[in-house]
């Protein structure tokens, strides 16, 4: 009798100590977190890896098919075009869209009055839901002389341009929109970063006779370097997953000129119902982005030390 009591007391003692140490509460707090992440984040990632080796039509049990999904995806004649388009989009967005927020941030940071107004105006496009903005822009891009942009450009004797209707200008038009939509919020991030730039360097440079441009070039930008590198990588990862813009602007046309990798994934999964091919292509894109990030990390690490 007394024996069992002490045994029980010991066990209970351990339990209460564990509970008093916060163990029980910690588990209770962890339950919703683990459930949500397991179902909607970790689970799908693992399932994606598995699915890329399977054939499934949601009715019959899934079948292992080895590498055949990957073979199918890689031999798809449209893949090269879609990859090139996606890379083209990423490149254009990098060339035109990337410097604009930096310029905007440096300029706004020099304002001593009304900078809040400038900030707010710059950020406004980021607030507008992309679907609504794209509908507006589609109208602005109307190709004949009646379109909004064409009318405005007509005043200075340009155009009319075909915008989304020609193979050559469809992608640049989408990049123009994406730049408009994204520049403001990126600029705000740079402005926040600019507030950490050490100002004594400017003074030193000024005493040494460096002009305003040289100060921007030799002090501001180098100090922003790390933020610039991170933002560039994030932008690259984002642009390689571009979907909504081509989907709503052109649907991939004209003549596949704006077909992107993500549009292909969408079509495999939700038009053809081929989830295996869709996940296989997703995995390939994710691998590519992973390799890109690693290479980028090592390359920029060398530069940021230099």
């Amino acid at each position: 009798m007394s024996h069992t009591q002490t045994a029980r007391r010991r066990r209970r003692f351990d339990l209460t100590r564990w509970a008093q140490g916060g163990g029980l509460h910690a588990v209770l707090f962890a339950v919703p977190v683990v459930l949500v992440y397991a179902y909607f984040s970790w689970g799908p990632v693992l399932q994606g890896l598995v699915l890329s080796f399977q054939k499934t039509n949601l009715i019959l049990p899934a079948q292992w098919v080895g590498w055949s999904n990957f073979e199918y995806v890689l031999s798809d004649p449209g893949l090269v075009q879609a990859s090139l388009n996606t890379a083209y989009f990423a490149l254009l967005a990098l060339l035109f869209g990337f410097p604009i927020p930096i310029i905007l941030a440096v300029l706004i940071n020099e304002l001593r009055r009304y900078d809040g107004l400038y900030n707010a105006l710059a950020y406004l496009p980021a607030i507008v839901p992309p679907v609504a903005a794209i509908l507006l822009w589609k109208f602005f891009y109307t190709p004949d002389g009646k379109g909004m942009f064409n009318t405005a450009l007509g005043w200075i004797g340009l155009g009319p341009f075909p915008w989304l209707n020609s193979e050559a200008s469809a992608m640049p038009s989408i990049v123009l929109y994406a730049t408009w939509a994204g520049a403001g919020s990126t600029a705000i991030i740079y402005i926040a970063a600019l507030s950490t730039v050490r100002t004594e360097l400017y003074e030193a440079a000024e005493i040494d006779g460096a002009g305003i441009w040289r100060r921007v070039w030799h002090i501001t930008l180098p100090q922003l370097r790390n933020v610039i590198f991170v933002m560039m990588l994030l932008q690259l990862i984002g642009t390689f997953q571009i979907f909504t813009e081509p989907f709503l602007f052109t649907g991939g046309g004209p003549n596949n000129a704006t077909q992107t990798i993500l549009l292909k994934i969408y079509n495999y999964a939700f038009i053809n119902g081929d989830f295996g091919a869709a996940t296989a292509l997703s995995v390939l894109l994710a691998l590519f982005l992973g390799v890109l990030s690693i290479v980028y990390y090592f390359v920029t690490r060398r530069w940021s030390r230099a």
Partner: protein
Amino acid sequence: MSVIDTPAAPAAPPQPRRRRRPEPETKERGVVSRSDRNRPSVRIWFRIVQTILLVVLIVSGLGPLLWAAKASVSTSNAIVSDPMGIWFTPNEWGNLLLAWNGAQIGRSLGNTVILAVGSTLTTLIVSVAAAFLLSVLRPKWGPWLSGAILATLFLPGVVSFVPLYLTILDMPLLNISLQDTFWAVWLPAGASAFNVVVLKRFFDSIPREYMEAAKIDGAGPLRILTMVVLPLSRPILGVIILLSVVGSWKEFLWPMLVLSNPELQPVSVMLPKLAAGNSPLAVQMAAVFLTIIIPVILFVIFQKQFLRGVGQAGGVKG
């Protein structure tokens, strides 16, 4: 990659609000110094650049919104024949009514609100629980959980996009389908590693003494969370709520996939359908205007929080 753990967080604990109109020299100097500013050539250039910048920002930031506002009260003919017209008579108030009732923008706006509120709630609950667990309770297995959550930040969304859809169709172990329920949008929104990082960082900056004191007074973890941690975190919670509401307002692809029932679809899914249909241009533009105006009003009211929040997001990323 040290994207997360660089200590560049301007996420300072509660600070006295800055005055609305700071003294002229409170802001630290930038590239251009005071003596530069006194030089006439610099001053002229400054004026020119400032003016150009302002015009560009007004045209690009405000322009499309004003244009949508104008189009929403014009006739379809007027929109097409004179898109750049500045003089117009706002005589077609019926457009807005037609869009609201006829095109069912009213109902889908309601759905958007429901989705935004629900997604924000799950994001808050899950992220606060995770951040509190990792920052304050710190169980032995905390680092594992934290690592697993952080890992999701680095995986591009594209890997899990199709399987996530299949998960919604048939939840593993539960064998229920969330398709065509608001849960299909609400629950996945909870898995936001980014907010966990932001919140954990903020919780870390709260002085431990407050929590120790509450503990000595006999408060359990839940009371510490609700009486100490959350009240002190109001600014960061506000930022997360705002960004989450606007974020889910902008959501398009995911709701389109999991909500096929038009009665449940948010406005972002309804708009392209409306545009593809044969409703008059003026009604479409009225619908666009109705979609835009609510987040814009939110932004105008809470600009400071928005801009600070986005800047902080940069601190986490950089």
